[in-house]
């Protein structure tokens, strides 16, 4: 055994840095979860903080926390309802473009927003929606309406979040579907044309069934992300005026923990959402095993 370990010493050396990094930045924080059950103050040692049992989970009794849970679920539900079918639809449309140059142009342009940060997206929203000469309010006023304070409105927050995430990711998410479409046997379309099938029939009976396996994989893989709605996107758009609908689990942890210093409580909330997402991943793995005959790993 020792001889084999020595034989592979270089391989172990290669793996070592990664293993150490995971230990430092994944495993140590996992052990750090214990502060959810301790009364921890920054500057003291976590091991010396007194145990307090489930005291830090008292947020479960606060109505404010359940509002945050609801906000999270609303945003993730809307994102799913619009964000899941949109790339399928766009991929089907791109696939029907006859000119291959135009097709490539559309693809390139629609992938582009994926590469901008959510901060830049927030700037774009601000540029269009601001009350100081922003285009949308400018047009509302010119047509005789009252300007709307979109950026600080509870009604417009969700449409803004959903709309901007559609803008940013729909094009990029077509890549897998377009790749799946190219693997469909062209003879199927030829045969369908001979049979007199029109475009709609071809999409309905050949293209859609052809990408169904991809659709089901994407569907399954989107389950674990149901609870994380993207703090990167929400946080830049959040302000005191729209907080009532904008505050989600991730921002709740951020505010209580890093900004107000309630480390133990924030860790408890974080633990709760980590556990839920672990359950979602495990469920997803089971579903994948049943449907595709193999798990995620």
């Amino acid at each position, binding site marked *: 055994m020792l001889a084999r370990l020595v034989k592979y010493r270089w391989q172990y050396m*290669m793996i070592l840095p*990664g293993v150490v990094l995971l230990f430092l930045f994944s495993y140590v924080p996992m052990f750090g979860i214990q502060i959810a059950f301790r009364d921890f103050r920054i500057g003291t040692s976590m091991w010396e903080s007194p145990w307090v049992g489930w005291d830090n989970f008292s947020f479960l009794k606060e109505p404010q926390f359940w509002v945050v849970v609801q906000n999270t679920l609303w945003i993730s539900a809307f994102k799913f309802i619009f964000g899941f079918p949109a790339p399928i639809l766009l991929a089907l449309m791109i696939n029907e473009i006859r000119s291959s140059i135009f097709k490539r142009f559309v693809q390139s342009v629609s992938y582009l927003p994926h590469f901008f940060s959510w901060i830049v997206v927030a700037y774009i929203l601000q540029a269009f929606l601001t009350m100081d000469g922003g285009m949308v309010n400018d047009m509302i006023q010119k047509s005789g309406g009252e300007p709307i304070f979109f950026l600080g409105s509870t009604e417009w927050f969700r449409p803004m979040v959903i709309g901007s995430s559609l803008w940013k990711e729909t094009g990029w998410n077509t890549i897998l579907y377009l790749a799946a479409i190219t693997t469909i046997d062209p003879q199927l379309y030829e045969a369908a044309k001979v049979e007199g099938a029109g475009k709609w029939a071809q999409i309905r009976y050949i293209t859609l069934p052809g990408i169904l396996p991809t659709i089901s994989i994407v569907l399954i893989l989107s389950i674990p992300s149901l609870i994380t709605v993207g703090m990167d996107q929400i946080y830049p758009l959040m302000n005191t005026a729209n907080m009532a609908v904008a505050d989600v689990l991730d921002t709740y942890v951020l505010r209580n923990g890093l900004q107000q210093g309630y480390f133990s409580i924030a860790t408890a909330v974080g633990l709760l959402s980590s556990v839920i997402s672990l359950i979602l991943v495990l469920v997803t793995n089971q579903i994948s095993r049943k449907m595709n005959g193999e798990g995620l790993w």
Partner: protein
Amino acid sequence: MGVMRSRSERWAQVVLIVVMLLICASVIYPFLYMLAISLNEGADAAKGGVYLWPRSFTLANYEIVLGNEVIRHAYLVTIARTILGTLSSLLITLLAAYGLSYKRLPFRAPIMTYILITMLFSGGLIPLYIQLNHLGLLNTFWVFIIPGMFSVWNMFVMLKFVNGIPEALIESAELDGSGPFRVLFSIVVPLSKPMLAALGLFTAVGHWNDWFAGAFYVTDQQLIPVQTFLQQLLSASDISAVIGSNTNQEALARDSAMQNITLMSIKMAVVMVSTLPILCVYPFLQKYFVKGVLIGSVKG
């Protein structure tokens, strides 16, 4: 019958092209709009109506933005972290992937499980923050680099790719007496260039776009990257709250009074300055990105 179908299909094609053009416009137009405002006098743009072309053209916004120490410094931080972060992450992740590609490696299975667990469960933000504090990484440049140096997801993609390299190639090199490091850099790396390019680009974009670490892991304004600067400016109520030292502020206040500069016009100039590099390199790199998605999506 045939004529009718081709006619209706021709109409469908026209509608399709119009819809596609609208979608493309929705992507491109915001940048033209922001560009127009950034090239317009701020006070004038605030009156509205600048949609496509600057009405009273000025470069003053860009002069202030490009002449500002804080922004220039933020740019240097972003460039440094993108280059260093990407190269170090590719190296460390590739080393681990190659080491683990030896199927007969003793304890390979437990090491893989050890790695996989971190994908399923995490300690969360606060325990990570406490650990970063404990290691003395908070408020240093290295907090941008070290925690992200090993990417589990990229390692699995690389592992799958390396496993696809014919074993005969590697074995013959080993028979010639090359050690694993030699084999890695003389055979595996040259064969993996497209994969490394794709993963490297994704990592680089991640670094370029990250504002979170700069906003919460550092407090020293000398250490913030461009995206964090943008994030601070986004919610600022006046220009001086974000930009520059006292002397700069005075100069800026004087300038803005003189040249009708508003917070909005400065914001638009800053956002253009931060996105232009991506807009410029994107057309040349797009094919690597697409390849990267497809490499990562096929399960191994």
